[in-house]
């Protein structure tokens, strides 16, 4: 089981702030993004390959190649705009 968090525009457009998911064969962030994309609608639009998506695993910036393991906290968010 992993915990997935969504922030800012992603949270609003998906209508969800967090969810729990069984890894079920998903080994990397790239696999997870593909699975989320497969849900269609806003998911497919936001997580399409040409979209700019930032991601973190256990609160450290990550990329599509980052390997997932049970208990991870994964987050997806739009490019950051602080400062």
């Amino acid at each position, binding site marked *: 089981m992993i915990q997935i*968090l969504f*922030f*800012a*525009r992603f949270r609003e457009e998906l209508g969800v702030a967090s969810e729990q998911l069984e890894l079920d064969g998903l080994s990397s962030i790239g696999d997870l993004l593909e699975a989320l994309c497969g849900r269609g609608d806003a998911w497919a639009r936001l997580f399409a390959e040409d979209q*700019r998506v*930032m991601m*973190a695993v256990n*609160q*450290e*910036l990550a990329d599509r190649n980052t390997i997932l393991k049970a208990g991870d906290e994964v*987050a997806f*968010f*739009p*490019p*950051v*705009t*602080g*400062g």
Partner: protein
Amino acid sequence: MNSVSIQADPLDPNHEVDLLRGNDPSIGAVVTFIGLMRDINEGDRVEGLYLEHYPGMTERALQKIVDEANNRWEIQHCRVVHRVGALSPTEPIVLVAVASRHRKEAFLACEFIIDYLKTKAPFWKKETTAEGERWVDARESDDTATLQWQKDD
């Protein structure tokens, strides 16, 4: 000494600089960057701003950035304070203050920290205009600014 704070309360840059300096007589220079809320963006009047962040990761990301600045330059103290929540035009959004023996290191470290913060720390701005609310888009120029600090491996 390095410290980072995320706060919903207004931030007072002068007070923060006083805290940073303390009574340390080895400091010869303090460089500060203060990011302020503008009342205009993309040609539209902006009435207010809401800053969202990722609690936990934000603090870690900022700490990592100031640690990296310490590795790269000889600096004495470093302080980053970032607002979250609702802000009005003219209010400070972020303060980066760096104290060092000599000015060069403080200038470089300060610019490095704000450039990295803008592309690596999980904050998002939502602004209110006459037409309603909208998320602020990231700027390509911020990515370019970050890239210039990347070392050749």
